[in-house]
């Protein structure tokens, strides 16, 4: 039977194929113990890896490993603690004198001086360098000269930055900002070595920093191998031999790889796996709060929404959303219903106050309906919630929110979702003020400060005040809080400002987002910081 033999041939070919693949399954993970290397999932960074140009988590992960700045946020408490800063002095909350610690170097041996910071900050602020985080330097005097809103720069360096000596420099801000030193833990403020300026292309292809890890090998778009830097002078030395970051096309695949023992750590458990994750990983699944809040924003540039009755409508809509049900059913408790406009990671001292919003953020069908009717009903008769359909499974929760509102109002068409194809398109519609209904908004904090959750979002004409909401009382309280030299006083004044948001409800807080991660049996001591980035240097390999 010739046919049969041929069939057998085909079967053998497949068998050989499978066997050959199996042969390729050798692990290159290295040994265990203190020199063991941890493999972790990664996404392709969207922008070139430069401290002042990285504004998303994937690039941020790397910066967190290879850089240490003047301050660092404690991965547990979120408090800004001195790292390279010996002291930061001020008398008037506006002029600061910063002294850099002695004995720190970059991994290429270059000494870190005050100049390493001043040069880096000037580079980050200068318009022609296209740094997407340039606005971080916006509080420093002279920013409007190096980074004008239009036209070209009239100065190359920030007038507010002055070198005093090798280890000291002064900073002059444009306004009083007592909590400003606490912002210095953000990677945009990292020092840069001379090599960054002299051979920029080489530096970008293999960045050199001063953190606990150095980059051993970087293949853009697919992987980065980081190794422990043994001469690292800080006290947060790496507890493992290194981290291998692997770019995954899909976090489902990364998750599967963890299950198969092919990967040690996945730092974003895909939504579709949330149901199985406890059975799959047990205690090796982490689900902790991150500094992210999701909200519904409204267009105040549209007259329909900027009415006196609008307040009641927005409060009513907020009360019509059943946050508890949505977070437990759709998000499997990876989000927590929001009851203020900040995040639990700030802690009570930092300004998080559970229940600050009170009744307007609690589900109450009867009052919701009453308030919306008193306010004159939803402007235009229908609430359209715009979202981007490409990432983050926004469709599910937008539909659920609408469902909740529709049920309260007894009208199936009161609220509908309006998907937009891509994130870029969504953002361009938001920023060009094309939307006339509500849209999903999210805020990931830059630094764990209550100021960061309020000022950039709700202050008049602030950088991320997309809905163009404006309120004098709120602005005044924020100004007062910033000028306050006592930390506790500043925080409580910010909370007073937040109470204006309760009365006005410019955006509806929905829920705080958690960071999630899963890891293999090979490693231990895994945790996530407030930015939902794994604290890599603490991971131990068994």
């Amino acid at each position: 039977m010739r046919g049969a033999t041929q069939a057998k041939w085909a079967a053998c070919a497949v068998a050989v194929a499978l066997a050959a693949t199996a042969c390729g399954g050798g692990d290159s993970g290295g040994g265990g113990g203190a020199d063991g290397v941890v493999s972790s999932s990664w996404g392709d960074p969207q922008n070139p890896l430069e401290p002042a140009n990285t504004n998303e988590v994937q690039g941020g992960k790397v910066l967190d490993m290879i850089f240490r700045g003047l301050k660092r946020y404690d991965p547990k408490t979120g408090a800004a603690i001195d790292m390279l800063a010996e002291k930061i002095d001020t008398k008037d909350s506006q002029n600061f004198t910063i002294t850099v610690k002695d004995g720190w170097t970059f991994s290429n041996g270059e000494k870190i001086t005050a100049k390493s910071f001043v040069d880096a900050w000037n580079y980050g602020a200068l318009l022609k360098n296209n740094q997407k985080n340039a606005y971080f330097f916006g509080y420093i005097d002279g920013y409007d000269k190096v980074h004008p809103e239009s036209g070209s720069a009239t100065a190359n360096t920030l007038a507010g930055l002055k070198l005093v000596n090798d280890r000291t420099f002064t900073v002059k801000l444009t306004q009083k900002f007592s909590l400003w030193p606490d912002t210095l833990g953000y990677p945009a403020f990292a020092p840069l070595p001379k090599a960054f300026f002299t051979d920029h292309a080489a530096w970008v292809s293999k960045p050199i920093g001063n953190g606990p890890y150095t980059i051993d090998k970087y293949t853009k778009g697919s992987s980065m191998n980081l190794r422990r830097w043994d001469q690292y002078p800080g006290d947060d030395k790496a507890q493992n031999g290194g981290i291998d970051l692997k770019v995954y096309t899909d976090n489902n695949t990364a998750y599967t790889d963890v299950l198969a023992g092919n990967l040690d750590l996945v730092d974003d458990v895909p939504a579709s796996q949330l149901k199985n994750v406890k059975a799959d990983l047990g205690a090796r699944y982490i689900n902790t709060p991150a500094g992210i809040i999701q909200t519904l924003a409204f267009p105040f540039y549209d007259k329909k929404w900027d009415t006196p009755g609008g307040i009641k409508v927005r409060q009513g809509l907020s009360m019509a959303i059943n946050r508890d049900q949505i977070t437990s059913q759709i998000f499997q408790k990876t989000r927590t219903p929001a009851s203020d406009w900040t995040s639990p990671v700030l802690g009570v001292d930092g300004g998080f106050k559970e229940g600050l919003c009170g009744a307007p953020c609690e589900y109450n069908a009867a009052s919701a309906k009453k308030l919306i009717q008193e306010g004159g009903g939803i402007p235009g008769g229908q609430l359209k919630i715009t979202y981007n359909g490409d990432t983050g499974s926004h469709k599910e929760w937008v539909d659920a929110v609408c469902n909740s509102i529709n049920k309260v109002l007894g009208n199936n068409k009161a609220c509908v979702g309006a998907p937009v194809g891509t994130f870029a398109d969504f953002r361009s519609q938001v920023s060009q003020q094309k939307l006339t209904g509500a849209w999903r908004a999210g805020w990931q904090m830059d630094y764990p400060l209550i100021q960061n959750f309020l000022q950039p979002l709700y202050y008049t004409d602030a950088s991320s005040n997309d809905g163009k909401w404006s309120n004098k009382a709120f602005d005044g309280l924020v100004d007062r809080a910033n000028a306050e030299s006592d930390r506790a006083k500043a925080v409580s004044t910010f909370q007073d400002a937040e109470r204006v948001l309760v009365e006005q409800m410019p955006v509806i807080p929905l829920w705080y987002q958690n960071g999630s991660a899963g890891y293999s049996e090979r490693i231990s001591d895994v945790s996530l910081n407030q930015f939902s980035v794994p604290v890599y240097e603490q991971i131990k390999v068994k």
Partner: protein
Amino acid sequence: MGRYVIRRLLQMIPVFFGTTLLIFLMVNVMGDPIAGLCGDRQCDPATAAQLRSEFGLDKPVWQQYATYMGNVFTGDFGTAFNGQKVTELMGTAFPITIRLTIVAIVFEVVIGITLGVITGLRRGRPVDTTVLILTLVVISIPTFVTGLLLQLLLGVEWGVIKPSVSPEAPFNELLVPGLVLASVSLAYVTRLTRTSIAENASADYVRTATAKGLPRRRVVLRHLLRNSLIPVVTFIGTDVGALMGGAIVTERIFNIHGVGYQLYQGILRQNSQTVVGFVTVLVLVFLAANLIVDLLYAVLDPRIRYA
């Protein structure tokens, strides 16, 4: 034959410009890509304006297209948003996808044609029925289901393969993804070959060849198969392009950093330089594959080249 080739090459020029223009317009219609670069916050206007002028996005679309095409002919495909040259991205992505496509095509040719010949010669027998049912099953199951299932069974449950392919993507790691990618086409190739063989099996020339006393093997391979291959070759030829462009699903599941992945990222980030660059090359691949198919026709059946 020479004139035939030249005529076909000239026909490719308008197709090439038409398709690239269409892609260019489509990506541009999607809106402003710079807005997505700054995450959930607004880029500050000055930086946004500067980025726009750097990527040429502040010019009218026709001018962008003209500049772009001008650059393409000098081998400059522009820069992706992360600062990498698009040609650099192509240099890493295309070899991987080509390897994947080769694996898939080999599976199609070897398994597909073999099964097709076997079933075509044994119509109505149990082998035939079994294979027909199997191909029907394969065709009706979407690729991502087959892919995820094989990944789960072979990768996690039995540990025969690694669930994900390493960045270098050597041939041996691409066998299972290649099989998944090929699966649907493979079923079609089987069915096409079977029908064609069955049709021709009772043709006069086959009877003549058998009557001459030629060995059965020679009759089947040289006479029957060669004449039956024309529709199959057409299908496989056009499939080369389809496989390269359509590998998005397979590449995502198995973590292969090939053309599909780059295209997906490009579309997500609305990076017109990446998308248009990759599609331009894919269009060229399609056109070349079609040309080769047409030339193969002429080889398989000399009557065609005069048509």
